[in-house]
């Protein structure tokens, strides 16, 4: 994807931080001047990318999500965000993707810390199709962007058009609204099928852009539901659920809303296994959504 964008736009640079052998080899071969093969030096890479961006380049950086956010946090805040540098941070393995590699490699607070930075844009796509529609828009988007990647080869569930900063209604219902970001859209769609069988009418609101947040539309949609459940592959602290809670608590709804967050507990995940096994262990599955919804609408 970055290859295709770079082919069309000479301002685009790519920086990899000690990636796997052969990554983007076509880019490297055809545009070596704009392909920077750097080492395990995230702080340097972010600041250096800021220097390139201040000279008019648009820089895409890829490495493992947690190293791209935590390791170089101050460089992101000061060198990128303060200067509105057009640098795109593409974090591989957001959430629990690197479960077999343990807690050093998990990115379960990335959305929280990126969301706290002024001028930052935060995106988590549901699948490759949504990514494909999103990426061309990153070229001219102002300021830095954090893009949280999923595992890859995730089930394609997204549809329709895509604009950065917009939220998408995948279903309209009456009883409960499921709010998703990233791959939890597929969990919500699965849960909806099960809930409809139980005669519970379910809406789905997909929030791929976590910052800037389309609060106006979210509020409008929230109004027509009594129960709202947010689902995310992220810590309870500071992610999708937190941002929805912020909106709900300041909304002064005339009626009472019932709100629950399905997210990872505020602790380091124990054990290893696969991403899916960790999601099951932490009660972030379609079944858990169904259970939570049933209890809420009773």
């Amino acid at each position, binding site marked *: 994807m970055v290859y295709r964008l770079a082919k069309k736009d000479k301002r685009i640079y790519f920086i990899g931080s000690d990636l796997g052998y052969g990554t983007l080899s076509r880019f490297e071969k055809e545009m070596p001047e704009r392909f920077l093969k750097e080492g395990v030096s995230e702080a340097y890479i*972010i600041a250096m*990318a800021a*220097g390139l961006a201040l*000279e008019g380049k648009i820089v895409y950086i890829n490495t493992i999500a947690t190293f791209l956010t935590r390791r170089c946090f101050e460089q992101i805040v000061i060198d990128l965000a303060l200067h509105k540098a057009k640098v795109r941070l593409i974090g591989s393995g957001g959430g629990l993707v690197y479960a077999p590699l343990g807690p050093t490699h998990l990115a379960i607070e990335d959305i929280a810390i990126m969301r706290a930075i002024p001028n930052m844009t935060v995106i988590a796509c549901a699948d490759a199709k949504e990514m494909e529609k999103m990426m061309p828009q990153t070229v001219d988007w102002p300021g830095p962007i954090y893009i949280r990647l999923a595992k890859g080869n995730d089930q394609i569930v997204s549809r329709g058009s895509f604009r950065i900063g917009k939220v998408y209604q995948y279903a309209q219902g009456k009883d409960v609204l499921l709010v998703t970001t990233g791959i939890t859209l597929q969990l919500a769609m699965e849960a909806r099928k099960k809930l409809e069988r139980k005669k519970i009418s379910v809406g789905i609101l997909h929030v791929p852009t976590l910052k800037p947040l389309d609060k106006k539309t979210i509020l409008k949609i929230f109004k027509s539901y009594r129960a709202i459940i947010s689902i995310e592959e992220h810590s309870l602290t500071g992610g999708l659920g937190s941002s929805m809670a912020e909106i709900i608590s300041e909304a002064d709804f005339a009626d009472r809303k019932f709100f629950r967050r399905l997210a990872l507990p505020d602790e380091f995940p124990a054990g290893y296994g696969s991403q899916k096994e960790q999601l099951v262990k932490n009660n972030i599955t379609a079944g858990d959504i169904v259970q939570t919804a049933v209890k809420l609408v009773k």
Partner: protein
Amino acid sequence: MLAQAGRGHLASAFSITEILLVLYNHILKYRPNNPEWPNRDRFILSKGQGCLSYYAILAEKGFFPKEKLTSFCQAETFLGGHPEHAIPGVEISTGSLGHGLAVGIGMALAAKRDKKHHRVFVLIGDGESNEGSVWEAALYAAKHRLDNLIVLVDYNKMQSWGATKEIVDLEPFADKWLSFGFAVRETDGHDKRQIYSQLKRLPFKKNKPGLLICHTVKGKGIKMTENNPEWHHRRDLKGEIMQNLYQGLEDYR
């Protein structure tokens, strides 16, 4: 500036005054009436706490009116305790240490790729060189063969808490930079002629980033501020203390 604000990193500024004077009087290419002129040499004051001298020189050169200087650190000013990129003539915001060198590498690399001839100067501190990010960046300046990058080190051998030798000794300092692939030179950082003669012909060596160690005295120019860690940063600049400073400056002349 100090009298109005009552505070500031005076000693950090005094140790770089001559370096900045040589750069802005003789070395850097710039246009004060067009600070964004694409062919300008880029200058980054990575040790942002040295901004008092920097602001004075930028104002002297006409980047902004001198009257603005007295607004230093006031609520509505653009001249804060560390320089911001919104100030005409300032490339990037600094203050948190250890950022400027890597950003400068990005700028120098962009110039190389675009086949442009301007140069990038980054002034760092010795205390700043405690930051791992300085050495992380240093690893890459030689890799990219950035002979359009000149790093100036304000080596006053003092940091906020005391002598660098006591906090963490940087020696052998020149050897460290040499081994990272820099072309290294040293100068008396208060002798303008010497600084100029080192910088008049660049690069130091083709295909290598240059590094000039400037041996300086923190708080240079006033007896009570020289090599005195109490003067790294002060918030009590009024009354008698200011009078003593003014007197000290008179004596230096």
